[in-house]
């Protein structure tokens, strides 16, 4: 296990290196000048020149990238062009929100997804199955902003059950949880749909397995056959989907964060991209990549618990 973690760490370094280069070059190549984003439309050429000089934007690509890497090796993610804030600090403010949201929506997604998928599989080809499949496809094709706005309209504005937006209160308070509900549903729906489809096909496969028949031959009760003998096996491929989705959610989700005014990493990143705030973009992308790798690692570790056949040397 430890050796696997160490190996992943090396892979991560490689990955981060590649990503930082890609980010740097894409920001460099994409049209748009950080200086004019700082100066705004009213800035004059001399204002811009001063800003560029100050940010080192007049250096060559390699010098800029080299400087950046040098900073990274000293554990310094740099400072925002725009706000002059430390990138690390900016991210550390946002990440807890994104994390809360990601966890909450994954919980929603997993609960709905597994439930819908199970019903679909157990009532294979019945109207319940068709309904749940339709729901899943709907969930995939509903744009998030639409669902989010609709939920706000119904539950916050009209019924006034839940707050419209924000994520200010700590999650363990009633208020904090209330704030999480709508964004979690909005965000979770898409993943729920994918999980549901995965659970369905995986269950359909597993219920035909020999060991399920064995369990029945032992006289195991039907409920236990499903929950103990089938579901755990069926979850193995589902875990990958959950992991990938969770990894993606941890990267922040621009639209949901925007609709619900959540101060998250997704918004930070998209704002930084829009502002051509290179160091901030770099920092947030690297964070996302790291999280992605970490989540994958966790998924792999979870595998060893769910599936004893998988062992890491």
């Amino acid at each position, binding site marked *: 296990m430890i050796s696997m973690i160490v190996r992943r760490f090396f892979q991560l370094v490689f*990955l981060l290196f590649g990503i930082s280069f890609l980010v740097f070059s*894409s920001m460099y190549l994409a049209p748009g000048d950080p200086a004019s984003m700082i100066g705004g439309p009213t800035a004059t050429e001399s204002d811009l020149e001063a800003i560029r000089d100050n940010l080192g934007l007049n250096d060559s690509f390699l010098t800029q990238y080299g400087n950046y890497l040098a900073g990274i090796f000293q554990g310094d993610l740099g400072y925002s062009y725009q706000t002059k804030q430390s990138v690390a600090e900016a991210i550390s403010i946002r990440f807890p929100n994104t994390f809360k949201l990601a966890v909450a929506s994954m919980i929603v997604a997993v609960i709905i997804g597994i439930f819908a998928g199970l019903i679909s599989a157990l009532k294979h080809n019945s109207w319940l199955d068709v309904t749940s499949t339709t729901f899943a496809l709907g969930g995939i094709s509903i744009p998030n902003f639409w669902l989010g706005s609709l939920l706000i309209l119904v539950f916050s504005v009209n019924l006034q059950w839940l707050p419209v937006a924000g994520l200010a209160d700590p999650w363990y308070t009633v208020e904090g949880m209330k704030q999480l509900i709508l964004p979690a549903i909005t965000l979770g729906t898409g993943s729920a749909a994918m999980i549901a489809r995965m659970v369905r096909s995986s269950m359909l496969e597993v219920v035909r397995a020999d060991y399920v028949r064995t369990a029945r031959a032992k006289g195991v009760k039907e409920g236990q056959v499903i929950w103990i003998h089938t579901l755990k096996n069926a979850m193995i491929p589902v875990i990958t989907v959950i992991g990938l989705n969770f990894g993606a959610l941890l990267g922040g989700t621009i639209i949901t964060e925007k609709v619900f005014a959540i101060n998250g990493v997704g918004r930070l990143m998209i704002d930084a991209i829009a502002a051509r705030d290179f160091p901030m973009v770099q920092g947030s992308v690297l964070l996302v990549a790291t999280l*992605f790798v970490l989540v994958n690692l966790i998924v792999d570790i979870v595998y060893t618990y769910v599936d004893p056949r998988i062992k890491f040397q």
Partner: protein
Amino acid sequence: MAELATAPGAGVNKEIKRERTFVVTMKRLLKNKLAVAGLIIIVLQIGMAIFAPLITFHDPVKQDINASELPVFSEDHWLGTDNYGRDVWSRIVYGARISLVVGLIAVTLGLIGGTILGMLGGYYKKLDGIIMRIVDLLFSFPGILLAMLIIAILGTSLVNVAIAISIWSIPTCARIVRGSVLSIKEKEYVMAMKSLGASDLRIMFKHILPNAFAPIIVFATMRMATAILSTASLSYLGLGAQPPTPEWGAMISQGQAFMWSSPHLTIIPGIAIMLTVFAFNVVGDGLRDAIDPNMDI
């Protein structure tokens, strides 16, 4: 030795019954009711796209400021008009041309890229490590940034948008394909082809790929939705379809501002996308079963 003796020297010229694979597949597909419903939707949409001028009564880009934001079932505009007074029905119909094409190109390119990567990674152990790292990289790289990069390099056009979107599908597709290849390459018929001296290319594309189709089809059909919706987020950045081009994703993102006053501006293209997604998914599922020769339908 009764069997050995049967039909000695049977003539080559004798007609041998053969059904074209396509025909067989279609026959099997048509037995699946849900898939038939999906097929009908797709055919209708393609028909809509092809015969757009015949089934619309308004120019999709013709504005009429005085008749803007008409609701659904208005006289003369049965799906209403948008905020420029353009006929929503016409825009949906003409939009089918663009959205379907962009979706298809994006998915196809993504599949090709993903399949090649996944195939190489799954088949050649030596390449696997590096390919999976590339896949991870693509996975964790923000799609928007990638799209900007691509469009910065290739220029703004719908095809480039499709290319940008296609890249988003590559990592997932590559993983799926790799997974299948890893298991299929251990199958005995692959070993059999090796023992017959088949080249790697032949094995990969003639023997492994066709058997890895099922998950690819499922993935591809699910991806259609994402692809069409992605054009919306790109057009939001000015990277997608340029106005006044009618394109479903862009219609949704434009209609967003009118969600309160004219919800039909988002709902209708939303339904169009949903129908497409539904159709492609059920046809995909049906197709997966239909091309599986072992499946009894």
